């Protein structure tokens, strides 16, 4: 499989961080998108990024995933061939990476799915992009993944436009994870969903993260979501990281004034 090419899917267990981010900065003209962001993400770790709209969390995620070009900084990924600066990679290398070793789950499933292609096709397409050719295998793996995200196998030939929002989101997750990535970026993955559907998706994500040993970076404004999903938390305000640490420590004993405000502003039910 093509995912092996950059080595992080090859069963290699890096002794250090999977991802090391240093001084990542992106301006929009004179305005700060995100500034001087640094962190290490270790294999199997789930990190949440929280902050209000405009805090720079989505800009940061886009820079990390290669959707936006930062103005400064490094994103070092542990690969079979040693540490590589993702930002210095060729376009072709980066594309290969985003097809196999890492995945991006968009808030709106329509941004991550091909709406005119069947559910099975959406999942199978990712496999073909990393070199799978045998139709029977592809269909079998697609069926398996639909079941893992709790979509009935008989819906395999339906288009995502016939699915509910929650199903579309689960399909996007199947499409993202079918190639066995090591790292997943998620932008408000439960954002547009009903609360009951959110819980189901959270449960699903937790199980997949645990079973696959995934590392993940999840951007959200929902503190309840990060509490249940993330090991670590980073709080952003005006493009800068104001606080980071263990998720329950940041939420239960926030050190920065902004985080204290954020935590105390959550409505209790």
């Amino acid at each position, binding site marked *: 499989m093509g995912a092996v090419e950059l080595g992080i899917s090859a069963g290699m267990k890096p002794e250090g961080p999977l991802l090391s981010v240093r001084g990542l900065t992106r301006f929009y003209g004179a305005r700060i998108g995100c500034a001087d962001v640094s962190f290490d993400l270790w294999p199997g770790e789930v990190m949440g990024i929280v902050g209000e709209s405009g805090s720079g969390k989505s800009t940061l995620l886009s820079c990390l995933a290669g959707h936006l070009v930062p103005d400064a900084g490094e994103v070092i990924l542990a690969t079979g061939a040693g540490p590589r600066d993702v930002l210095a990679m060729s376009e072709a290398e980066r594309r290969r990476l985003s097809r196999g070793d890492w995945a991006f789950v968009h808030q709106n499933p329509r941004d991550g799915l091909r709406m005119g292609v069947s559910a099975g096709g959406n999942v199978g397409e990712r496999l073909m992009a990393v070199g799978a050719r045998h139709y029977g295998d592809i269909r079998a793996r697609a069926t398996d993944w639909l079941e893992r995200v709790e979509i009935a196998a008989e819906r395999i030939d339906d288009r995502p436009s016939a699915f509910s929002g929650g199903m579309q989101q689960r399909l996007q997750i199947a499409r993202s994870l079918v190639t066995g990535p090591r790292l997943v970026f998620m932008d408000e993955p439960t954002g547009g969903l009903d609360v009951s559907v959110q*819980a189901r998706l959270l*449960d699903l994500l937790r199980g997949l993260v645990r079973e696959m040993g995934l590392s993940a970076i999840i951007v959200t404004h929902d503190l309840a979501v990060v509490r249940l999903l993330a090991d670590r938390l980073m709080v952003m305000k005006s493009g800068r990281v104001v606080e980071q640490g263990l998720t329950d420590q940041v939420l239960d*004993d926030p050190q920065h004034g902004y985080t204290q405000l954020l935590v105390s502003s959550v409505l209790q039910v």
Partner: protein
Amino acid sequence: MIRISDLSKTFTLHNQGRARIPVMAGASLQVAAGECVGLVGASGAGKSTLMRLIWGNYLADGGRIEVGDLDIVRAAPREIIALRRATLGYVSQFLRVVPRVPVLDVVAEPLRVLGRPAEEARAVAAGLLERLNLPSRLWSLSPTTFSGGEQQRVNIARGFAHPYPALLLDEPTASLDAANRAVVLEMIAEAKARGAAILGIFHDEGARAQVCDRLVDVTAFAPRGVA
């Protein structure tokens, strides 16, 4: 197993005039393997605060909290996560779970994160729930709608699913009837017998007398001029 020395904690409320509230200074205590130490002191004296500092969801200002070989005060998040997986268990008064996950899986989860197969983890969970008299017709339901006593038993089952070498117990018998209280005290005694170091808060004096080897009054850990 648990060694605390010269621990201090102050809360700074940035949005309330930067008020600084010192809550603990010079706290020291040790819990050996196979020992159960009970924390006592009036409400607000800092018993729960101390438990949270050890669990790592409160950040200490100074001092040391060693659990096994790890100093929680200086540990990186991933080290604390690893410690919570294998070494340090916590039965809190609150059950925080993903809605919709069945009780059986909630209790099996600590074993699943340690890599135990699903069936095996569920079998351990079932044994614990049975022992704690939680009717099996509830096992496939989410505990979010359970009564206080039922939720507490789910929490206890979770905390005893893996034989953690160190255990924090916050009022483990508070909402239980006599029969279940006896079961929990028996489970605590068994954990001691296998060598667990246990630190607990028990308002229930009978329970305290039955399982605690020593008591530590946290009033002594109050910062000077506060208590």
